[in-house]
């Protein structure tokens, strides 16, 4: 559970840092008055609620993957563990996901400049390459299966299929949101909301890229020879 504990320690220190700015040692019974008015109704701070909600959600997803990694590393030490050989296609997929993340980064920049043309192009590139990643993952599964490695073949294979599936599902969910943002852009929706939804997608994308890089590194470090 070490990985999970470390992850939660990071989340915990963010919470602790935030709490340390909340004057938890003040004596509220000595203070009267309303204080400064908040920035606006329903959105107390400078961060939009949707963005904060996304970050909280990322903490949940992070906890999920940390636990998968913990389970992986505990199961790895049981006697029957046989390392898995990975299809090279995963490198291509990783490249696609990096490109997708980069495209969304460009989209955010374009949205901030209110550069509609580049925004559409970047969103399209991001969507297509992310879809390409998902297709590539399915192809990688098929390669594994063609090589006789199925879900229940070995514990390493079970983890491979399970973890990539969970990651893929999260990306597929993001793809729905990204497509909706793209449609809004294509229809020329309000710039403020568009910018926010593009930013949210980009944050989610970078996070899922980070998760994938960690997972891929874990798989690479624990893989066996080629088959």
């Amino acid at each position: 559970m070490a990985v999970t504990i470390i992850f939660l320690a990071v989340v915990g220190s963010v919470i602790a840092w935030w709490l340390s700015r909340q004057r938890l040692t003040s004596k509220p019974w000595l203070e009267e008055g309303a204080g400064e008015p908040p920035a606006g109704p329903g959105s107390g701070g400078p961060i939009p609620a949707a963005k904060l909600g996304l970050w909280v959600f990322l903490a949940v997803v992070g906890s999920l993957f940390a636990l998968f990694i913990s389970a992986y590393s505990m199961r790895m030490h049981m006697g029957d563990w046989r390392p898995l050989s990975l299809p090279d296609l995963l490198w291509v997929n990783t490249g696609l996901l990096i490109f997708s993340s980069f495209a969304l980064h460009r989209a955010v920049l374009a949205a901030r400049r209110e550069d509609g043309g580049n925004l559409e192009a970047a969103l399209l590139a991001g969507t297509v390459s992310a879809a390409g990643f998902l297709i590539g993952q399915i192809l990688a599964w098929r390669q594994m299966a063609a090589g006789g490695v199925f879900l229940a073949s070995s514990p390493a294979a079970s983890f491979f299929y399970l973890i990539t599936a969970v990651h893929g599902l999260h990306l597929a969910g993001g793809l729905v949101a990204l497509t909706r943002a793209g449609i809004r852009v294509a229809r020329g929706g309000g710039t403020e909301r568009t910018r926010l939804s593009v930013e949210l997608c980009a944050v989610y994308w970078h996070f899922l890229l980070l998760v994938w890089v960690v997972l891929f590194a874990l798989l690479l470090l624990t893989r066996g020879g080629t088959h």
Partner: protein
Amino acid sequence: MVDIARGPTDLVPPAEVEDAELYHPKSWITKYVFSQDAKVIAIQYSLTAMAIGLVALVLSWLMRLQLGFPGYFSFISPESYYQFITMHGMIMVIYLLTALFLGGFGNYLIPLMIGARDMVFPYVNMLSYWVYLLAVLVLVASFFAPGGPTGAGWTLYPPQAILSGTPGSGWGIVLMLSSLILFIIGFTMGGLNYVVTVLQGRTRGMTLMRMPLTIWGIFTATVMALLAFPALFVGAVMLLFDRLLGTSFFMPAIVEMGQFLERDGGSPILFQHLFWFFGHPEVYIVALPAFGIVSDLISTHARRNIFGYRMMVWAIVAIGALSFIVWAHHMYVSGMNPYFGFFFATTTLIIAVPTAIKVYNWILTLWRGDIHLTVPMLFALGFVVTFVNGGLTGLFLGNAVVDVPLSDTMFVVAHFHMVMGVAPILVILGAIYHWYPKITGRMLNDALGKFHFWVTFLGAYAIFFPMHYLGLMGVPRRYFELGETISLQESHSLNAFITVVALLVGFAQMVFLFNLGWSLFRGREAGSNPWRATTLEWQTPDTPPRHGNWGKELPVVYRWAYDYSVPGAEQDFLPQNQPSPVRSG
């Protein structure tokens, strides 16, 4: 952070609101069924949780009948007995307590108590309830599935949970795991709302240190639940794979009923780690909202500020953080590395310190108070007694070596029922008596309420206090019958006594249900603030509050939540949104 002027200040202009950005329901269906109003969602959550809780109550009667009078009830077989205990446990912990505290009280109280119009993501909030309902329906479906619900015990330990020697290892366990996965998805949707609403939805002047402890408890519990439920999610998904797809995450090489299974090398202990990594924080996910609510009940009805508010807040946060590093105290005799015991016994007993501080402060709030023995107050007092009792027996079980003889005995059953069954339920009941007037506009009947309290409190104590001694004798939990074991013969009379009391306590809950329905139409009109409480939910312009809670203007908060019996004030309470500086000293 918001800087607050010290000393009396003048009235600030009302927090302006142009037109509240709310989705106003247009039809009966969008108002009461697919509603996005947190208050309606709260009631939906609560009614669903109470309905499924009644199933759990009936199951507990059936298992008590078998334990008290073994052999008399031919329709209870070992298989059905194990199905009863499993479903009872899972329903109570997840589908009743977690859902009611966070989905029910969280939804109702968070926006009202912090001065918000609604949750920040009302649509997601609505989805949260419907996914929860689906989870409950899938759970209920397992009663009607071939082979019945799972009888693996609520801990669902593999390999047993998915092997044929356990009832419901076909459909039952699959439906149970699917239902849990759905529950977690639904909860996450709600939980995001509760957290972000507390962070962003607070009205002007509502700093964190002015929040009522109810909100602190629910908020901290939600953060913990968001981080801990993924562990159950991971365990459930992997167990489902093991059951349906032939993987070996948890399944070692096994000879099942003479048949060698095609599994290898999996680790049952891994599941236990995942389960308890969720399971222990879960205890506090239920306890922290109860701590928070009971603090507010005691303070309001004792007309005294909660004693040591800052310590109470720090203790909630400390308990929440510590509860993530104690999980393996459920596993002292599980066969894990025995040297872990030193660490986990130490962390577990350290938690006793902040918890004890909370107990002291509840009692010190009573001390030199002006105690009104209303029905909510009675339940709060009952909570303190049962919680202290159950918390102290936790010091037995948390201490590794003492746990060795006591683990898996009735002592454990008595302990966790007292501390996370009876105690939180007394809070829930007290909270319902307390907030029912705000929810419905009418008071619950007082005489019925007192009857309900006395039977429930004394009965529950009479059930679970002696049960510890059964465990001390060595009576195991999860035994369909004790048989002829000589050393356990004396337990039969006590078991029969416990069963009789349990049936009585169960029936007393029907009085409560009757009261809920009867008072809806015949209860005394409550007015907007019958308990003369300071917190914001009692200061709404309408009772029950309408969609949007506050009419045109959001309240502005001028003081903390516990200005009761302030010297020199005209009344013995100052609402949080009252600006006038009437304090003389």
